[in-house]
């Protein structure tokens, strides 16, 4: 118990499926405890109420940093009150500041070392934006909060010996803006971060990294676009010169096929929809999003707030916590490895 890492879990959008997923995670923890101390960052009353509504029975207790870790499979709640009452399924922009506060405090707790890793449940981006907050995603928010110039969003599956890992050079960017964002510096820095973090956090001594092209058939020798020749190949060459096992650019529609992908520890995609659909298909809803390059470990579910499920306690009860469980498990694994465990 003493060497169990302390993991923070943010509830995310209070009107979304986060509270129910946390309750389902709590039931799981109670039944089959994770080898970690799990601190849920969110509104304690709301969490208790939503668990009861859905007929779920997790064990919750208040988080007291100085207290001994619970031994009865309890989740500890670090109370971060919501601003206004919450109607499940109907996010209220008035609660946006409290959501940001939840994320900020959790991130700061990681930065100061109170938590060994952070797991995030989904937020409703549009509601934060409706509240006038320029929020493009957790990944970008934590980068800004920690003044990290470049972070990399990587997605992976759970549980297998050689999971598919897909890292993105660009994330939430309109497709028409993607080619201009594929610069030599962007690709090179992404490759450097992926290589470094796979070694440091994932324990892969010499990670093998494949890089996708941008265009159909990876540009087909310049006939279908020149970014592969002008930008991506030189960035790969620089990474190779730096001692990393990086290869490509490969046509995206062939590199993800398992017979090819199995030869790599990670595949670097140029844009969101080049890489994410593959993960979604391969992980059947149990994908995990990992942020590389932050000063702390951060994993996340790969799905949204599922407002339609949240609105109905019967459906909410049947929500699939697979992604949150997988993200928690990976956060624990990475935290243990960083601690030298």
């Amino acid at each position, binding site marked *: 118990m003493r060497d169990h890492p302390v993991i923070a879990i943010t509830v995310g959008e209070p009107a979304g499926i986060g509270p129910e997923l946390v309750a389902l995670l709590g039931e799981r923890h109670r039944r089959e405890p994770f080898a970690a101390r799990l601190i849920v960052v969110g509104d304690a009353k709301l969490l208790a109420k939503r668990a009861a509504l859905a007929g779920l029975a997790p064990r919750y207790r208040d988080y007291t940093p100085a207290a001994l870790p619970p031994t009865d499979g309890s989740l500890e709640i670090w109370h971060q009150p919501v601003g206004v009452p919450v109607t499940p399924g109907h996010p209220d922009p008035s609660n946006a500041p409290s959501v940001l506060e939840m994320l900020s405090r959790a991130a700061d707790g990681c930065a100061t070392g109170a938590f060994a890793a952070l797991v995030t449940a989904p937020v409703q981006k549009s509601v934060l934006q409706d509240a006038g907050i320029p929020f493009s995603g957790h990944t970008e928010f934590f980068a800004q909060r920690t003044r990290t110039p470049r972070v990399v969003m990587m997605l992976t599956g759970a549980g297998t010996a050689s999971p598919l890992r897909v890292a993105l050079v660009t994330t939430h960017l309109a497709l028409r803006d993607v080619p201009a964002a594929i610069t030599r510096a962007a690709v090179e820095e992404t490759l450097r971060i992926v290589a470094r973090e796979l070694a440091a956090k994932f324990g892969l001594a010499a990670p093998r990294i494949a890089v996708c092209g941008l265009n159909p058939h990876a*540009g087909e020798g310049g006939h*279908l676009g020149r970014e592969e020749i002008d930008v991506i190949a030189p960035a790969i060459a620089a990474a190779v010169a730096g001692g990393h096992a990086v290869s490509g650019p490969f046509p995206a529609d062939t590199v993800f096929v398992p017979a090819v992908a199995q030869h790599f520890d990670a595949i670097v995609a140029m844009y969101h*929809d080049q890489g994410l659909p593959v993960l979604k298909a391969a992980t059947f809803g149990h994908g995990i999003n990992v942020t590389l390059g932050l000063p702390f470990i951060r994993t996340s579910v790969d799905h949204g707030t599922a407002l339609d499920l949240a609105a109905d306690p019967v459906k909410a009860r049947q929500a699939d916590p697979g992604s949150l469980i997988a993200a928690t498990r990976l956060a624990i694994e990475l935290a243990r490895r960083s601690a030298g465990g």
Partner: protein
Amino acid sequence: MGIRRPKPAGRRATGTAVGDTGARNHAYDGMQRTKEFTVTPSPAEPAIDRPTVALAMGDPAGVSPELTARLLADDEVRQAAWLVVFGDRRILDEGAKVARVALDIDVVARGASPGPHGRPVLVDLAHLAPAAVRLGEATPVGGAFAIENFRHALAMAQSGQADAVCFTPFNKQAMRYVYPGYDDEIGFVSETIGFHGAAREFNILEGLWNARVTSHIPLAQVAATITTERILAELALADRCLRSAGFAQPRIAVAGLNPHAGDGGNCGTEEIEVIAPAVKAGVERGFNVSGPYPADTVFVRARKGAFDAVLTMYHDQGQIAMKLIGFERGVTLLGGFPFPICTPAHGTAYDIVGQGVANIGASRQALLLAARMARQQRAARSAPQPCPTAA
């Protein structure tokens, strides 16, 4: 929702099609197009019979000969269509030997009429000796063989004597040795039969269809190429092809262009300005279409049975998903031509040539799809027309 017909009225099915065939016989460069397919209507045949499928043998250096032999020996295929194969008897015999099947077919010489319906027929073009084939290699000899077979099959369908065309895998490099302008099948067929309309490639796998709005263009040009009109045109073509393949009300999902389908305009505006209006117009035209959907979930939903087809905005959006599912087990349909053209999605498989282990699955699916589409087209032609014109 109105019934849409794949073809304009005017041709009545009488087993072999009659009508405007003579004028469309097309002389292709350098090769003599004889009148081997003079129309011989057979009044005794029922209005809807087994459709005739012209099957071109593909690259002789790969698995095409053994696949052709297996198709000819396949009961389901033989029941679904009357096969007329174009190739060389000696090459087909080699394929049968490799596949370890006995050929129960008729053989006619180049220029002879392959009819009447009965056992499958090989039109022996006698143009390639097995000794000239270098197995596992793309060569001009192999390319010339495949191209001539394909041209004959296309000519037969164009003349109305065949209802559909199929081919076993080609090697593009081999085709380019003898026909340097060979870019893809769509271009070649259009040139060969003098077709100026819109034809597109559809990838079909386990009942799921994928059509795309743009294909082989740089990613930087995709956003500017996606227009409402273009999407609507692709929708219409997809709907038409799906219907002729037997889908009564094909459910077509349209993918977005941007991450999370633009996330309400936060991540690109094409969904709002271009794609959604096309979907709306499609619904108004009677298509069972919906979207735009985020690309990272639309295929997951489609595979669970929510849709019959996904219309993607660019090449990799569909290809990545389809190849993950097992693209090479699927079928490629060239849709939009006056007759369906189907082929297995996999290639020539040079690495396993001669071993007799080539899987017939995709080729059989290609044949059965062609037969199904041909039957539907015949049925549509023979059905009473809503607005008969005065004679």
